[in-house]
């Protein structure tokens, strides 16, 4: 790049740097707060970086309750992801590759989209009543079903996109070769849609792990997940800020790892049909 080119790029580089600082400062602050002793957490001028004091983390790990909640979050997130991707993939294929000559209205897809519009309260409260009657309250299975139903909308949308991007001729060719719809799906088309499925799975994991309101309403002491445990942290420990920060950081780690690992698929999942890199 020529010198003039570098100069012209300066405003956008500077702006990007400012944005990056703004985006990452709260994360830095969270990590910092978790690594300073409790009494230093809110002292001014702030202790920008004094050293690595892991006592807060030790205390959080020592409390078995938080770890159990994290385990619950993991189970729920994995189960929800599997359900969402399976349902979404099957539906995406069915909607775009089967019965192609029929009139296709946008109605089914609007219905899929509308599942995201449901305000959590309108879902949580009825489910709370229903679960009470069928003894699913405060269970992981109950939460899995509830979360799956709000996550599956996004995942299905992505998979419909992904399958739409795969030429229908491939399925037609497979059928000419004697495959049933199921075999064509399993052997021929689904493998082509795998990148989209990975992206959708990433988003699903993210949404489920971070989900708060449904977990708050539908679980209690037995099936508590990470976010709810964090929310109730304040009640247990008499407001130890470093421990709160440490617990928050621990809660952050899995999703950051997942996003880091599958970043490319995440991007293409969200913009399917167009990304080249």
């Amino acid at each position, binding site marked *: *790049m020529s010198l003039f080119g570098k100069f012209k*790029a300066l405003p*956008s580089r500077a702006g990007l740097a400012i*944005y990056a600082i703004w985006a990452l400062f*709260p994360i830095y602050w*969270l990590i910092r*707060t978790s690594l300073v002793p409790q009494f230093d957490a809110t*002292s001014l001028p702030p202790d920008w970086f004094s050293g690595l004091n892991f006592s807060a983390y030790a205390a959080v790990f020592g409390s078995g309750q938080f770890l159990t909640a994290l385990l619950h979050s993991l189970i729920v997130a994995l189960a929800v992801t599997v*359900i969402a991707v399976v*349902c*979404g993939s*099957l*539906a995406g294929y*069915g*909607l775009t590759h*089967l*019965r192609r*000559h*029929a*009139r296709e*209205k946008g*109605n089914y897809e*609007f219905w899929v989209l509308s599942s995201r*519009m*449901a*305000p959590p*309260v*309108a*879902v949580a*409260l*009825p*489910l709370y009543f*229903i679960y009470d009657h069928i003894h699913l309250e405060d269970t992981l299975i109950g939460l899995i079903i509830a979360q799956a*139903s709000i996550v*599956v909308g996004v995942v299905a*949308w*992505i998979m*419909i*996109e992904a399958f739409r991007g795969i030429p229908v001729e491939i399925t037609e060719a497979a059928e000419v070769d004697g495959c049933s*719809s*199921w075999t064509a799906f399993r052997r021929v088309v689904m493998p082509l849609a795998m990148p989209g499925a990975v992206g959708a799975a990433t988003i699903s994991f993210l949404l489920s792990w*971070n989900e*708060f*309101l449904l977990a708050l309403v539908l679980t209690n002491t037995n099936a508590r997940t990470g976010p709810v445990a*964090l*929310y109730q942290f304040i009640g247990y420990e008499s407001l130890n800020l470093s421990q709160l*920060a440490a617990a*928050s950081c621990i809660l*952050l780690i899995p*999703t950051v790892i*997942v*996003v880091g690992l599958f*970043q490319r698929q*995440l*991007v293409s999942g*969200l*913009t399917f*049909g*167009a*990304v080249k890199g």
Partner: protein
Amino acid sequence: MTNPETLDTLVTGGGPGITPAPAGDAGVQRRRRTARRRDPQRRARRLFLAPLTVVLAVVTIVPFLVALGLSLTNANPLNHSTKFVGLGNYGSLVEDGSFRSAVLITIIFTVVAVAVELGLGIAVAVALNSLRRGGSVLRTLLLIPMAAAPIAVMYDWQLMLNALSGVINYVLSLVGLPQPDWLGSNSFALPALIAIDVWEWTPFIMVIIVGGLSAIPQEIYEAAKVDGAAGLQQFMRITLPLLKPYIMVAVLFRSIDALKTFDSIQVLTSGGPGTSTTTVNYYAFREAINNLEFGRGTAAAICLLIIAIVLSKLLISRLRQQRVTRAG
């Protein structure tokens, strides 16, 4: 999410119809053949769509009917004589000044937050795109606000925004700027929440636009340069129009989610001070869970659902308009 064909289907609502069977003897044969070929396909399609339909029904049909039913009663777990009140809850909501203000606050929050996220997201995406190296590392880092669990980040923000001991006000004091009580003042609480939403969700829009940008072939820019188009012109005349479908999808999805913002309000302001940060979703939650007025709470939630449906139909029809003008 932004494959033009899906948008097309959603927008135009149809494709070529089923070709009618030709008449006559040969027609009967052909009709029988096509019918036989169609039937197993139709059945297969239904089977493939079934799991999704069932799971979706769990959230869209069953709870919706229950919520609808609840909203027509004065159900309250402490009050054992639940009776049917028809549209009474909805009527009382319309008359309730604090509900009307909740609607206004929800609209303000959503419009401002999504607008800022859109502008910022596009700017960051364009800037990222121009980076030769390190683009994808930076992109991963910038995705962290979106990946972080909102509940975890909220306490962090609460610490930082604390009027007396928060780091933000400390830095402001160093520079000599005023240090407001962010979460405790009527005029700053809502902007603070909007800023937090922008912080958290700009990456979402950024990611979609990054994808959209990579779909634009470089040759267009080269041709434009030959024609003498400068940088800003290139952006306005080429980039932005080509990004329109991506922008619309990003705005659609982000708006639907912004209407339901909950975590930040619950943790940081509890709808206050006063009612300055009470959105319809929070209002519904408070009515139902705190005040145990199940009927009223679900009525408020259904009002929000109606707002969301109206908004998304509006956005989709704008998409439709845009396609018509482009084709014509």
